[in-house]
């Protein structure tokens, strides 16, 4: 799952190393529009439908947060 997430992130902002940051938002690696793009790409990559109420910056702050969100939607099964 981790590699897939990193691939998705790299597809959105290829100029950054997402494995080296613990806060993509604070570090300026993802802005609000990027988060929307990330949701759309994760939906497709993991065949899930992340609900709008979960589209909050804190759910996409780092790899741990994204993994936890994806588990909520059964993406690890």
């Amino acid at each position, binding site marked *: 799952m981790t590699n897939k997430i990193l691939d998705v992130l790299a597809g959105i902002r290829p100029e950054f190393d997402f494995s080296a940051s613990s806060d993509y938002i604070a570090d300026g690696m993802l802005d*609000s529009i990027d988060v929307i793009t990330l949701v759309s790409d994760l939906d497709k990559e993991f065949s899930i439908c992340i609900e709008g*109420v979960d589209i909050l910056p804190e759910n996409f702050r780092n790899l741990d947060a994204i993994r936890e969100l994806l588990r909520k939607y059964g993406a690890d099964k």
Partner: protein
Amino acid sequence: MNLVFGQRRIEGLLAVLPSNERRFIDEMEQFDFPIERSIKLKEMMGYDKHRIVDGPVCVSDLAVRGFEHLFTSGTLQKDDIDALVLVTQSPDYFMPPTSSVIQGRLGLKHDMFCMDINQGCAGFLIGLIQAFMLLDQPAIRKVALVNADVLSRKASSRDRNSYPLIGDAASITIVGRSQDATPIHANLKMDGTRRDALIIPAGGFREPSGPATCIREADAEGNLRARDDLVMNGSAVFNFVQVEVPPMIAALLETAQVDKDAVDAFVFHQPNRFMLQKLADKMKVPYEKMPSNIVEHFGNSSGVTIPLALAFNLRDRILGGTLTAVLGGFGVGLTWSSMLLRLGPLDFCEMIEYP
């Protein structure tokens, strides 16, 4: 707040769009972002074309164009208008009310009621609610509800968060009484503690415009805007809509005792395609029952998007027949409102261009 209205009917509606059409692909270079990211944004949000006024065109100009069309075509008689309710966030002046400007320019009768309401993306619902209440008075038989905004004039052309989706437009909705009409259910909520989510910080009496308020500065995401410009906290607005709208619609249908599957169309305010499709997913409503194509064709014109969505997507169905519709508006204030009603057959449903 739950509301119910009896013997009320939307008789017809007209949308007025500026003929000046701009394309997102031609504007991408004015934003400080790589072209590839802008293209991604276009695909996801549905940004493509938007209609904005060309030059110093005001709300009353769009409204007068619409009324003159209705008068000259014989669709509406001047003296039949007993009240004119204008909903706008971009009035011609602080004073007088722009509804009075429209009344004067059209030469409407003196024996009538004119009022302005400062509302935005929920403005079609707020305006309908006001129109329905005015019709409680026996002297008022027909209300002309005007929704109009020219907010492109208050959006920074260097702001990727707002400018590509802004649209200018006006709509005229004629509301009257009908003995046969089924009850119209509505609900409404407001939360002024979240008022900063959509705001033009300067230009009012709190922070008058001056040399400093027109200087554009970069925000954390690289958008350039001044305090005289529209500011939209996209994340806050997105979350607000996703949290508040689905339970509002569920509560409306429960109050009205109407099954979701019996609704023919969910016609909501049109912020962008992604937001609407996420709402449809959450509410388990098929995309074909919830139009989301107004931003890509015309831009987001605040309170005009619902009547525009009706005219653009459902014209034939509401001219020739009747459908059960849920309307939903949400935005500045913050304000959110929905309405369940039977729509049609309308006397007219048109889209025209300005000038």
